[in-house]
């Protein structure tokens, strides 16, 4: 009986290598700084990770469908700037849906190019990264956007407010993760996403409309980006044009760290959340330990590679696994 439990646990650990890595790093950082496990700190890290996390949820869909989205960083800047600008012009109640509509249009455009015109997603989203940045700068005239009357608006509730002591960004991140997690794991649409990414030809023969599935994945991603932009704008109540720049790589790192395959067909929302938290806690832990700034870059990426290695080692049951 005991032996069986141990075997089960071994199997569980082997499947959840990334979770093991996560727990190991948490223990290490706790030993290095006693404030790391402070509830305020943990809450703070999850809250700061929420924006990256929301974006990673959407990109998980895109990656599982076998594509990439490198435009999410500039698209987030776009959403942030647009919603801040419209806030002062037409009020928050109209600004938020208008911004979502505009961001979804961008997502639909990318989805059309990748899904229906079958263009390579790396090239399309790399191009959109620049194009959307240009769009943002044109829209704003290069100026920072700030909300004029910060005290007299309810707009801050998304990024700054809390419900029963839990910050709203965390609630939004976790509820969105729950909804999208169920959508991916339990619905026909979710199964189609895995099928398209896993084996596109087989999916076609099973009668799955591949183009429509890919198109929908980019819509999901754009919706998540718009949510992230809303959180960002509301959190800082003002923004620079460059706010999301460079985030696409961190988002992708979190998704891959969570175990999604760049080849498509593999990954889950739960593991992406773990990937996001690992990134957040590593950055926070290094900051608390007081490591010099440049060293933080190096150590962050060494840790990420270690985590991926641990994950693979746990799955294969061996530390050494050369390309055969």
């Amino acid at each position, binding site marked *: 009986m005991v032996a069986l439990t141990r075997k089960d646990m071994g199997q569980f650990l082997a499947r959840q290598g990334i979770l093991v890595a996560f727990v190991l790093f948490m223990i290490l950082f706790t030993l290095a700084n006693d404030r790391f496990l402070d509830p305020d700190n943990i809450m703070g890290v999850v809250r700061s990770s929420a924006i990256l996390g929301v974006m990673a949820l959407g990109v998980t869909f895109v990656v599982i469908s076998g594509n990439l989205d490198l435009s999410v960083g500039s698209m987030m800047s776009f959403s942030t700037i647009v919603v801040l600008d419209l806030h002062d012009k037409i009020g928050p109640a109209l600004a938020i849906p208008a911004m979502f509509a505009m961001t979804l249009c961008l997502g639909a455009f990318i989805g059309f190019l990748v899904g229906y015109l079958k263009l390579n997603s790396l090239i399309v989203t790399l191009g959109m990264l620049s194009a959307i940045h240009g769009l943002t700068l044109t829209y704003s005239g*290069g100026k920072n956007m700030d909300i004029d009357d*910060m*005290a007299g608006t309810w707009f801050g509730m998304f990024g700054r407010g809390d419900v029963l002591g839990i910050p709203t960004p965390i609630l939004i991140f976790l509820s969105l993760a729950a909804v999208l997690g169920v959508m991916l794991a339990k619905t026909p649409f979710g199964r189609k996403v895995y099928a398209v990414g896993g084996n596109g030809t087989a999916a076609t023969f099973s009668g799955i409309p591949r183009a429509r599935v890919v198109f929908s994945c980019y819509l999901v991603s754009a919706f998540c980006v718009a949510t992230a932009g809303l959180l960002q704008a509301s959190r800082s*109540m003002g923004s620079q044009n460059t706010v999301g720049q460079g985030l696409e790589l961190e988002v992708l790192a979190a998704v891959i760290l969570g175990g999604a395959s760049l080849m498509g067909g593999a990954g889950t929302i739960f593991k992406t959340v773990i990937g996001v938290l690992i990134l957040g806690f590593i950055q926070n832990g290094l*900051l608390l330990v007081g490591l010099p*700034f440049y060293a933080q870059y190096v150590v962050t990426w060494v840790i990420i590679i270690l985590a991926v290695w641990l994950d693979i080692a746990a799955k294969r049951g061996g530390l050494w696994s050369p390309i055969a």
Partner: protein
Amino acid sequence: MKFQTILAAAAASTAVVGVAQAETYKIGITQNNVGVDSYQTTYEQAFVDAANANDRVEAVVLDAGGDVARQIAQMENLIQQGVDAIIIWPTNGEAVIPAVRKAKQADIPVVVTNSNIDEKGFDFISSFSGPDNIAQGATAAEVMCDRFKALGIADEAQIVEITGQPGYTTAIERSDGFTERLPEICPNVELVDSQPGDWNREKAQTVMEAFLTKYDDIDGVYAGDDNMGVGGLNAAMAAGREGITFVGATNFAVGYEAMANGDYWGSIYQSPVDDARAALETAVDILDGVDVPFLNYFETPAITQDNMGEFTKPVF
């Protein structure tokens, strides 16, 4: 008869061109990264306005988009065009030196604007026009120290610093000016930590959240610009930590407002409009043969809750 007319016409047009060459200057500017922040955007607009207002100046306005290679290409292009003077806002204080040397070899005077190039390149430039960032850092230290003295905590205060983009000259100079001046006037104030916020409000907010967790006792925050200072303020307000003295630099509209609300103590007033006008003026003066100082600084006074009425709200 006809031949004479042509000759006369030719002579006349030569004379006109000759006069024109003596009177109007073609001045090229290559900027760092317009649009990355409101300061640089406002600077460009002010520069164009100042050039339009001056009949003697024809301006060629370029932007490197933060890309060193593009800026070097733009320098070479301006040299090719044979402009009378070049103004450069360096994307990188070291990498642009060879391009600046090329301009010098072509006898085109170069004015560096806003943030300086590395000292190794000083032989190749005519003047630097911009703010004195070391002095700004020092002034910020004085503002912080005076505030602590007024609050009666100058003997025990602990502060943290949020710096600009690592490796960027302005960020380094402001930090150096601050950390060198502070111990001279407030020897017992301790700088407990310093991390970069990359000129980015969101990043500064995240850094400040970690500071607040790490240190129970923070009395002051010095930020390399107001954008980051306000990010720090956001974090402190969200955490309910009151009584922290925030001092920034380059007063932004958000910093000015936070000051008016009584949440933010002080900053350094630096106008992109003054910055742009000073650069153009320096270039014109050099072409006119007027003596200008090699380091041609414009005024950047301290602004605090006490004297903010003397300053207009920044437009960026």
